[in-house]
């Protein structure tokens, strides 16, 4: 590991100023991804600015009903928070579906958004990777890509974003807030991750040196009936090969509101807007759910080794929405 300087910031302006002193600096949150990448040589910072002690560790409901989540809130605290569990249960489920109890105690919300792909070529400095070394090539396209992207990828990079949390945040219209030396800013999660194109090394819309300060979720009554389902190659403690975050509001058999996002299919959490449009105002039936999934997945461009994901995601969409519709029907009957 390259030698590095370490500084602990106690406030946001201090953190920004420290980062500005060194071009090869990185913010350190929980370190569960960054420290691992430093060990393997993928990350070689000259300075770590530790932001764990910044006063950004709170979760609160603002007067306008917006849920504010500080950037240094740990995954554990986010998942366990009563308002998260009540208003956005799929977010709690998504966080709990990721990593292990130990890692969730360390990892932070800001760091989760900025974690890097787990593509094996990205993690191996002896291999080419356009994301790590621009212009060096992408061996995954013709190589090991069983868990790579089916949506929104390019010939320059087919890696997927590994976050579970981000999939639920995408479904619920999260906004990422940040600070820069020139003042604060905000960007919807939908625009936070840049299209891959021919610049996969440019991952987010954050300005240089910006520090994520938090994430907000607008009030969304539909999210109270939401679910996250993740498929992986073992029962626990593994990255997704496909996942779905869904929320559904059915009234008299008709879809009144719906949120749908997919994980492990693209370089960002994938909000399934075409599927949502296909569902709104239509019947809440398995046929309609399948057709909506098809409407989204018509854009899929699977590689030779990952075509299974198209079927997997379609099946997940039908299964999760069918469950939510059935529960909604039971609730309607009980309150009638």
């Amino acid at each position, binding site marked *: 590991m390259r030698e590095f300087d370490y500084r602990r910031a106690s406030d946001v302006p201090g953190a920004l100023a420290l980062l500005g002193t060194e071009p090869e600096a990185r913010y350190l949150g929980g*370190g569960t991804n960054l420290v691992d990448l430093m060990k393997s040589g993928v990350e070689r910072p000259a300075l770590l600015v530790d932001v764990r002690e910044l006063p950004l560790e709170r979760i609160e409901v603002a007067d306008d009903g917006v849920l504010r989540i500080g950037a240094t809130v740990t995954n554990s605290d986010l998942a366990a928070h009563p308002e998260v569990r009540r208003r956005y249960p799929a977010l709690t489920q998504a966080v709990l579906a990721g990593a292990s109890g130990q890692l969730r105690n360390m990892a932070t919300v800001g760091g989760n958004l900025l974690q890097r792909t787990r593509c094996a070529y990205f993690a191996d400095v002896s291999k080419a990777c356009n994301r790590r070394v621009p212009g060096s090539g992408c061996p995954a396209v013709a190589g090991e890509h069983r868990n790579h992207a089916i949506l929104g990828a390019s010939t320059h990079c087919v890696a997927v974003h590994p976050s579970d949390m981000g999939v639920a945040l995408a479904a619920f219209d999260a906004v990422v807030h940040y600070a820069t030396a020139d003042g604060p800013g905000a960007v919807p999660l939908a625009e936070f991750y840049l299209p891959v194109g021919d610049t996969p090394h440019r991952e987010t819309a954050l300005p240089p040196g910006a520090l994520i300060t938090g994430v907000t979720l607008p009030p969304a009554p539909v999210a109270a009936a939401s679910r996250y389902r993740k498929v992986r190659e073992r*029962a626990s403690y593994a990255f997704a090969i496909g996942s779905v975050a869904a929320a559904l509001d059915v009234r008299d058999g008709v879809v009144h509101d719906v949120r749908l996002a997919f994980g492990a299919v693209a370089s960002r959490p994938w909000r399934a807007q075409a599927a949502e449009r296909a569902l709104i105002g239509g019947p809440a039936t398995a046929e309609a759910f399948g057709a909506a999934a098809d409407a989204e997945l018509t854009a899929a461009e699977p590689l030779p080794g990952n075509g299974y994901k198209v079927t997997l995601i379609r099946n997940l969409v039908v299964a999760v929405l069918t469950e939510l519709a059935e529960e909604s029907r039971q609730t309607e009957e009980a309150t009638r």
Partner: protein
Amino acid sequence: MAPSTAGAITLTINGEKHTLPVDNRTTLLDALRERLGLTGTKKGCDQGQCGACTVLLGGRRVVSCLQLAVAAEGREVTTIEGVADGERLHPVQQAFLDLDGFQCGYCTPGQICSAIAAIEEHAAGWPSAATTDVRPEAGIPPLTADEIRERMSGNLCRCGAYVSIVQAVARAAEDSARTAGRTDVTDVEGAA
């Protein structure tokens, strides 16, 4: 500000303050084992994937292989050497002994530290990925075998002693609940 790639840190480990100079690259795991002689904490994968290096940092379980020692400056660390009360074993240690929750023993310090925290997390009402209804109104889920397996999934055991580990964790949870005036937190056979 001249760059500095090393410095002195102070950690409170098992109730005792230690000040030591460290290179910034040193993990908490290596500081414990190589610098302080606390070799109970084990190095398995060194990548955060196996849980053998689990310790409690500020009372919460973490993998010490991904925790930079310098970033733990000023904090409290509990390792396997510090969980017993003098000669009296921690209830989780006792349960692992009584129910054969190990074979070779290499993963055991991490399993025990992890289990201590997992039982506390459950008692505090934290749901897990095995919890059917995560809404707070649903209350604390019973600590079933599925719940224990999920909550302990960050600790691998290459001997495959999982069946006994689940029973040991359930037994210890039952003991600690009884002490706190609660009962029947688990339905795992052999635990009560």
